[in-house]
């Protein structure tokens, strides 16, 4: 096991810079998730850690060693690919044993390690099958088995669950987390699914267009997003944003939206900022239905069973609110939505930074 350091790393493909100076430090044994929208450079960064892509500038270290110039096989990492990349002409056990065989490991040791990994992943009955004869989830497990067998310093996962159906994805999520708790191997995991990130990570790195937007523990990102991008990316359904400007002074400040609705700000609102334009952010679950509060009219009601999700028109802005209680709401109905002022967020309307 080892820590991983990524220091001012840049990557260009030809003249186009894809990754613009990324700094991440990953501690020994940590489960770090790189998350971000499609095309933001997550896979590229992971592949640079693996050594499958050259680093244009900057430094990547694994443990104590700077690995910039080191070929993948000397980096002591294992990678699980999105499409699993299982060798189709090898059985499950041959797939898992391949890396050990290449290193001319003794037969008895190979068998033993393959069996240990297969035991952990429940692959014992499948050892003699070929990849074609496996289901998606089983292939996924073989891919992980191939990584485990090597007992590497770092595991790298590139969207390992995106080819699975929703139910299996939830199950594998738990399995991977369990596996990590058991092996405690440093793990870097790429996904574009923020729920995966929230549920599995010790630490989340939110990326966007080749830069790191914020690094932190899942709940920290949820509670204190550093900017509007992170606020909108983390959490589902996404946070509501309404632009307007701040009115009133300290203590009883509020934000007046473009539609003329007054929304309360908490005690933490920036001082002496009367008239300043800003973006108001409130999570759907931080609304309560009350007699006061901002007036809105119901547009769509979407019950999911455990909660209901209401889309409402609030002075021209569409807002989403989620309630655990079963309110009986009809489209067109007038309601009052009151945000919890202590849990709202305020962002700069120009650069999106948190105020």
């Amino acid at each position: 096991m080892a820590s991983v350091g990524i220091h001012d790393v840049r990557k260009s493909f030809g003249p186009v810079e894809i990754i613009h100076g990324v700094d991440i430090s990953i501690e020994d044994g940590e489960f770090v998730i790189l998350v971000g929208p499609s095309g933001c450079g997550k896979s590229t960064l992971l592949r640079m850690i693996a050594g499958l892509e050259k680093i244009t500038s900057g430094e990547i270290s694994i443990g104590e060693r700077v690995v910039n110039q080191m070929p993948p096989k000397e980096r002591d990492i294992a990678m699980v690919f999105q499409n699993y990349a299982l060798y189709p002409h090898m059985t499950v056990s041959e797939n898992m044993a391949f890396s050990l065989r290449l290193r001319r490991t003794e037969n008895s040791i190979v068998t033993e390690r393959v069996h240990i990994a297969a035991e952990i992943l429940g692959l014992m009955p499948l050892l003699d099958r070929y990849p074609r004869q496996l289901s998606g989830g089983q292939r996924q497990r073989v891919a992980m088995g191939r990584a485990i067998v090597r007992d590497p310093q770092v595991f790298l996962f590139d969207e390992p669950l995106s080819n699975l159906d929703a139910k299996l994805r939830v199950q594998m999520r738990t399995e991977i987390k369990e596996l990590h708790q058991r092996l405690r191997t440093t793990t870097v995991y790429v996904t574009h699914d923020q729920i995966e990130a929230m549920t599995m990570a010790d630490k989340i790195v939110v990326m966007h267009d080749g830069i790191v937007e914020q690094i932190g523990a899942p709940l920290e990102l949820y509670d204190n997003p550093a900017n509007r991008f992170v606020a909108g990316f983390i959490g589902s359904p996404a946070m509501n944003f309404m632009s307007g400007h701040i009115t009133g002074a300290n203590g009883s400040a509020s934000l007046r939206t473009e539609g003329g609705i007054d929304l309360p700000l908490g005690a933490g609102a920036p001082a002496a900022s009367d008239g300043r334009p800003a973006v108001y952010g409130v999570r759907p679950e931080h609304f309560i239905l009350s007699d006061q509060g901002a007036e809105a009219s119901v547009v769509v009601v979407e019950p999911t069973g455990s909660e209901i999700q209401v889309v409402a028109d609030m002075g021209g802005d569409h807002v989403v609110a989620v309630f655990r209680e079963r309110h009986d709401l009809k489209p067109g109905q007038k309601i009052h939505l009151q945000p919890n002022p202590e849990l709202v967020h305020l962002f700069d309307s120009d650069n999106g930074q948190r105020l």
Partner: protein
Amino acid sequence: MLDAAARQNAVAPVSFWTRLNENRNVLGLWFMLPAAAFLLLFLAYPLGLGIWLSLTDARIGRAGEFIGVENFVWLWGDSVFWLSVFNTLLYTIVASVIKFAIGLYLALLLNNNIAFKAFIRAIVLLPFIVPTVLSAIAFWWIFDSQFSIISWALIELGIIEQNIDFLGTPNNARASVIFANIWRGVPFVAITLLAGLQTVPQSLYEAATIDGASKWAMFRHITYPLLTPIIAVVMTFSVLFTFTDFQLIYAMTRGGPVNATHLMATLSYQRAILGGNLGEGAAISTAMIPFLLSAIMFSWFGLQRRKWQQGESDD
């Protein structure tokens, strides 16, 4: 249960003819009919006719009479025939092996990111595009005893003193026609194998890189096993084409010198058409069938779906 039975009985009785037409198998036969007729007309008939001729003493302009295996008995004692068998086997084996080696090498080379890839691919295809007879004539010049460019170049370089008689001595002639055949055949092998190489997913190589495989190990453990089905197809065709080659030999040497480059195909032509002995020529051609069949059998086993290619249902 009862319900289903009742429903089945309720179906209106249909005529035998309608039922026949709706039967899957019968319908299948109907659909196969045009293809079958085609095959019979253009493949089976000439083949059958050839075999029949080989059992007669037909000559050009005279329908023959059935003489049993007399032609074959005669050939059995004919040393020229045996020489042509030997030549054909030598030609096929040596040319096929070398074509495979060079073709595979070129395919691997072209599968890498090299400079001027498209251009080099075009060049590799060139020998394939040129009509055989044209390239044979070109080789005829290249290997000419007086004006050979190879001899000329070697003399200029001071390596040899006299022109090499490429097509004049038996072994030189054999080597020359084999060389020409290789030159013509390599593109087919190279391009087909290249197509096969490109179906191997890049991620397998990446996985292998991380697993610690060297370039050689990747070829040995990933490329080669995944390529075997294509190799089987390519080599079957390559062997069949080479074994039955006619144009190249006929244009370059006509089987000479002293029958040293006669293949079964050229000998058959010579005896049947030029010599007028249709029956005997047909017998030589018919004698090729067992060889071709065994080549096909061989590749048929090579082409069997490998265990790893099968899905769950084939278990």
